[in-house]
Structure formats: C-alpha cells, structure tokens
C-alpha cells in the first residue's frame, strides 16, 4: 500500500503458485463477442474431454476428426441423414425455447410429440378426409393435439399453481402408455402383428422436396422464422421479454402475464406436436413405440445451449443431429455404445453451463499488501 502512495512500484517478488490469492467479483456486463468467445471455448473444452473419452474407449485418435467432421458433413449421404434427423430436433428445440422464455419449464415435449403423432396417425388409421388433403389435415391435427396436451398442465399451473415440471413430466408417461395401449390393441398392424400402426399410404408421407428431408426441414425453418418473428419483432415478444425478465414487474406495468404464459405454452405444445408428425410421417412412415425417445431431453438441451434464441436453436439442433449420426456410425465401426452420444451431449452441456460462471464473474488476483 505504501508503494502505491509514493508511486514507486514494488519489486516483483516470486510467489509460490499455491499461496497466491484470488477473489471473485461479479461482472456487470460482458460484451457479446467476449461472451461468444467464452461459449466457444466451453464447447471446445467439452469436445476435447469427449474426444479423450472416445479415445479411451478405443476410437483411434486420428480417426475422430475423420468420423465426426469429414464423414458426416462432407459425405452427401451422411449429410442427408443429419438433415433428416435435424428437422424434428429443430422443432423440439424451438418448442422448449419458447416455453422457457415464459419461465415455464415444459418437460412434456415427448408427451406432446406422442399426441401429435397419435392425432396424425388416427387420420390414417380411420381414413379421414380426401387423400389430396390428408397430409395437410394430419399436420393440422398433430398441431392441435400437441397444443391440447400442453393445455392441461398449463391450466393446472395457472389456475392452481401446480408445479408444471412435475405435471408435464408425469403426463409424458400417461401419453407413452396410451401410445402402447393403442399399438398393442386397436392400432396393431394386421399385416405383421407387430406393435406398430399399419404403414401410411404414400399420400400420407411427407413428399420429397430437394431430397428426402426437404419438406420436414422446410417446415422446421418456417417454424424458426415464425418464432424468431414472434420473439423479436412482435409486441407479444416485448411482453414475453418482460415476463422472462421479471414476472412481478411485468404484472405491475400491465403486461397480461397469464395470457402470455398461456400463449407461449400452447405454441410450445403445438410445435412439439408437429415434431411428432414430422417423425412419424417423414421418417418412420407409421406410428411406432419409441419414435419419441430422447427428443424431450434434446429439446431442453438445445434451448439451453441456444439461450432460448430461435436461430441459435436451429444451429444447435443441427449440431446435435450431427452428433447423433456420427454416434451411429461409431456404433457400427467401433462398437461404441450409443449411450456414448448421450455422454458427449451431457459433457458439452456441463461445460457450457459452467462457462456461465465466467461470464458472470471475474477472477482477480489479490496482491499482497
């Protein structure tokens, strides 16, 4: 301290590393390029850790880059698979993001997907509507079914304060078991007696549009633009930002908080319902037992990594889809279990979540006085 006063710099003494002291300070605001750099660093750290685990599991270190980047992105067939996987991922990512923006933790994406798919398949099973309009009807019914399934926990929360985390999560099991009830009973495929629905008619499948996944991807991109418009350009988006920033302030300044939460939740359910339609009609061509597995978790993860931003969510969804596809080829070529993909996802998420700490805090060396 005396040095600082007299203006004479203290000679630098060597200090052992472990005796240095640091303090944590709260950082008010970080410029966004710095934030992006911190996030990128976190993703790189996560990938490095994941790479080390994969190497330990028997993938040659030299092949990692080949498998993950070259073979998936630069191979036309693999790229096709990524996009194929990507469309429903984008939908669930958007669905989670919009609900999270209203501070509503919708963990019921899978249930809403299931109901969307059940609604769409019902039209096929009971042959409803003219063939020319069938696909459009299936889309609409899937949307409405997903929306209605999300309405129940939303009303419970808004009317009686029932925690939506529990309600939406548990309703997934209700939806999943009802799906099994249908597939083992009324909707069992008579052709094979397997527990899945009869195959859709060709006019009930998403048409090829610039490749097999073009139509699904198109729907996902339109949804992305719609959500982006809503959160950034509309008055509802301003209301939603207030609800997200502080519900008491929003209420006091006259934002219709309840209505905004309801709008966000129903939109979330509708998007998830459409995701269910995209998987059944676009990928499987019938209603199957496990078509929804993993989407709920992935949707939450995508929204989290993208900070609930719709365009970022789309990019992250495609990256996660890449991971899925690469994981599948690892499974084939190196006998790496598929759960390794989930492990990688989890590691990356933990790294990104931890990086938040460095955005909000600053580590400062305490100089000995």
């Amino acid at each position, binding site marked *: 301290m005396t040095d600082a006063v007299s203006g004479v710099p203290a000679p630098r003494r060597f200090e052992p590393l472990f005796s240095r002291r640091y303090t944590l300070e709260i950082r008010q605001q970080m410029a966004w390029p710095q934030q992006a750099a911190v996030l990128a660093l976190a993703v790189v750290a996560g990938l490095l850790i994941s790479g080390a685990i994969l190497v330990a599991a028997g993938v040659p270190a030299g092949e990692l880059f080949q498998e993950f980047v070259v073979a998936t992105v630069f191979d036309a067939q693999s790229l096709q698979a990524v996009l194929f996987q990507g469309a429903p991922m984008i939908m669930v990512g958007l669905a989670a993001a919009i609900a999270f923006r209203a501070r509503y933790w919708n963990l019921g994406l899978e249930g809403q997907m299931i109901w969307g798919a059940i609604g769409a398949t019902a039209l096929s099973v009971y042959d409803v509507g003219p063939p020319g309009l069938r696909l459009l009807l299936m889309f609409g019914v899937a949307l409405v079914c997903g929306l209605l399934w999300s309405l129940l926990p939303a009303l419970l929360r808004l009317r009686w304060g029932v925690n939506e985390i529990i309600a939406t999560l548990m309703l997934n099991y209700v939806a999943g078991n009802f799906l099994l009830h249908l597939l083992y009973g009324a909707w069992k495929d008579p052709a094979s007696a397997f527990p899945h629905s009869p195959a859709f008619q060709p006019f009930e499948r998403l048409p090829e549009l610039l490749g097999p996944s073009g139509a699904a991807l198109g729907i996902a991109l339109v949804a992305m633009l719609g959500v982006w418009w809503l959160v950034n350009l509309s008055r509802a988006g301003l209301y939603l*930002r*207030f609800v997200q920033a502080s519900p008491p302030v929003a209420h006091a300044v006259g934002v219709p908080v309840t209505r905004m939460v309801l709008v966000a939740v129903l939109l979330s359910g509708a998007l998830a319902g459409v995701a269910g339609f995209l998987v059944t009609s676009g990928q499987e061509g019938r209603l199957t037992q496990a078509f929804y597995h993993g989407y709920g978790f992935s949707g939450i993860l995508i929204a989290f990594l993208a900070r609930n931003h719709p365009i970022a969510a789309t990019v992250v969804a495609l990256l996660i889809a890449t991971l899925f596809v690469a994981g599948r080829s690892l499974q084939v070529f190196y006998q790496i279990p598929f759960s390794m993909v989930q492990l990688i996802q989890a590691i990356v998420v933990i790294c990104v979540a931890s990086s938040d700490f460095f955005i909000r805090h600053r580590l400062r060396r305490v100089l000995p006085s």
Partner: protein
Amino acid sequence: MTPALTLRDIRKSFDGFLALDNAHIAVRWGEVHALLGENGAGKSSLMNIAAGLYKPEAGELLVNHNPVRFNGPRDAAREHIGMVHQHFKLVRPFTVAQNILLSLPEPAEPLSYRQRLAEVARRVQAQAAALGFAIDPQARIDQLSIAEQQRVEILKVLLAGARILILDEPTAVLTDQEAASLLTTVRALAREGAAVVLVTHKMADVKAYADRVTVMRGGRTVASVDPAETPVAELVRLTVGEGVDDGAVAAPRRAGDRGAPMLTVRELALGARGGHRPLDGVNLTVHAGEIYGIAGVGGNGQGELAAAIMGLSRGFEGELRLQAVNLLSVSPARRRHLGMAAIPADRYSHALAGALSIAENFGIGLVHAGRYGFSLWLRKRRMDAETRDAVAAFDVQGVRSVAQKAALLSGGNAQKLVLAREFSKQPRLVLAHSPSRGLDVRAGAEVHARLRAARDAGAAVLLISEDLDEVLRLADRVGVMARGRIVAEFEQPADRQAIGQAMTHHD
C-alpha cells in the same frame, strides 16, 4: 456510571448520499439508552457502525475509553457488543440450540457436535431462566412466534458474550403485551450492569423504559436528554424538527380549488378479522388537482395500501374506486388504461426490468394502447425515437444508448425513467410511494416538480412517504397512517408537531 460505548463525530455516506454527519452517542454501563428518530434519521446506520457492519468515514469509536476499530461483527463481538437486527438472522428449519451454536466461537476443549449442542441447550435454558422466560432449545425456529424468535436472537448475542446490547426497533413487530414483557427483560439486563441501546421511534417506550435518550434527525445527533424530565411534546419537536421553511414550498391549494373526487377508499381492509390486519379500514378521498400526502412510520400499512391501488396482490376487502370504477376487480393493465400511473417504492420489483433495455422499459407504458403497433408487430423505431425524446425531456443521465440495460442507471436516473414512462400519458391518478427515497437532493426536487406538475394538470396524486418533510413540502392535505388506518387528517398548513404526535402517540 462509566461510559461503555461512545461514538463521536461519525460520518458515513452511501453512493454520495450523506447518511450520517456529526453523529454521536454515549452509552453508560447499567442503563437503557434509547435512540430516537424518524425513518432515515440514521439510527440504524449509526448502530451498524457500532456493531462492526459498516466502517465509518470519519469519527471514533470508544469502548470503555479505549479507541477501537472494527473490521466486521466478529471484532465487535470481541468487545462484547451484540446487535439484534430488525430482520432476524436465524436459520428457520434449525432448532434454537443449533442456531445459537452456529454463532458461537469454537470452544477451547474439543467436544463432539452432540456434546456441544447439549452444552448450548443447557446454557440457553439457564440464561432464559435468568431473564425470566422459558424457551425450548429443541424447538425449530419456524415453529416459534415472532416474539419467541426475538428472544432467541437476544439469547444468541448474550451467550456470545455481549455486554453491550443493541436492539434495532425491537417492538415494531410485537403486540403491546409482548413489547411490555420484552422491555421489562431489557430493564432487568441493565439492572445487572449491561448497557442496552434501544433503537426506536415510539415515545411511549422511551418515556417508560429508557434512562437516557439520544435524538437523531437527518443523520445528526440533535440532543441527548433525560426522558423523565422531558415532556413528550419536546421529544416530538426534537424528532421531527422545527420544519424550517426552505422556500421550496409551493402554496398549497385551498379546498375551493379541488376538483371532483377521483380516488375513493372506503373501509379498505386486508387480513383476517381478529388476527393481524395490515390494513384495518382505510378511509380517504383524493380529489382531482390535489396532492394527498400520507405520513406515518413505516410498516403501518403503507405498503399494503400501495399494493391495493397498483393491483399487485389480492385479498382486499372494502371499496377502492377510481371515479366510478371499482379498482379491486380489475387488472393492473386495465387500471393503467383508466389513467392510473404508479411510482412504486421498490423500482426493481414493480417498475423496471433491469435486464431489459431503457427503450423497452419506457415503451411498455404506451405499448398497450397500441401506440407501438399491435400484437404481431412492434414499431421499434418509433419506440426508440420516443424513448430518446422522453429521456432528454426528463433529463435521464447516463444513457449512452436507449438499448442499454436499465439496471445500469443510477437510482435517481432510474427513477426519472419511471417518471418519464408514467407521465408519458396524461394520468388521472398518480400513486407515488417514497418517490425520492435514496435520491440526492437535486433528483428528489425534480421528482417533486413532476408530481406538482401532474397535480396542476388536474391529476389526483396520492403521495405515501415516511419522510415527513417530503409530505409537508408536497401535500395539499395530509393523512396520518397508523396501524392500518388513517388516524388523523390535516389541512395545510399543517401543524408539524400535531402530525408528529399522531404518528407516534396513538392507541
């Protein structure tokens, strides 16, 4: 009697606001020393310095004539100073014994946790018996009443070795019987030789229980007297001051200038009958073109009244009308549409979203009316342009861009932003709750000028403030709030002493 604790010429400021200037107090062993003053007079700040929580910028602290310097409450505890805060610092799911154990230093001899807990429980019971009450050391804090929790706090500081005991507004949360019992206990402690500082604003407690009283006003010590020889009127005069006319007082309007009744409150109540009632039948009328000021000691229902008018919570009974519309049955959005503007006491809980931009915080006021587009389209450019105009018109400083976060504004400028938004439409009713609290003099004066301008434009203004000077300077009529009702009403020019009496001397 020898001095136990002396604070001399203490100065302390917060964000440039001088909270304490030339404050002093001398407490002797064996006495109950009351520290009297209005809200914001600096009582708690001074005592927080004595307890080691704040560091003074100037002045000295003496314990038994020895100068001391505290770097934290532990240093103060080493000098046997203990403070019981207004808001208890207890871990609710823990038992009494566990809470007290937490605050004690490590014992010299190694004991197991269980042994230490048993030891503490024994000492708790012994100390409680010595003070004349019983307490179960195994009871969980959340099962205890407020009065019992307060006893735990007192036991906590005593068992930590405190001989100089500071109690910050201890009777504010107690019923009369509980308060009487507490103050009897406090007297007993002093009789045994301890020094007790009783921070309070209640004249009756001072008269009945204190050996000496130090009066503070505006961060200064104004007097130190013997309460037995000083009449209540004199204590009130010392507390609220002479109210020197500073020339800024606008001529209050006479009854003849008043417009029609705008806000009508009839028998407004909150809480269960027979139980604690934060609002217990409030009656008042605010006319167009007048400022109605509510004076009173904080915590007498002012916050609940403001919440009722703003629509922050539910459960109110009675009548609250804006002209013909019953406000209790309509949403905050509807109230704003009807012409209500509100400047709440806590900006970041009820007025501004700190994480959002200045433009968003300004625009949210007019956006409902469709000025900035309809639900699917936001006219952002227009909103930004009008925000820039309003920021300039209301002299909000420190705005580099209207896209910057509102949280980065200083208190005074954040308040000006609230005013800019609330007055962007011509309001018919303005609720202002402690609108200049925490602001410097200049910003406070600007806020006052805006409120007067709103009144002159024909709005009904309801000003709720714990600062009597603010009320007297602004209000055309003054109501005094105590125990959830308006206990007295005064036409301006009001008698400051009479208002002070009504605030502090009521039953």
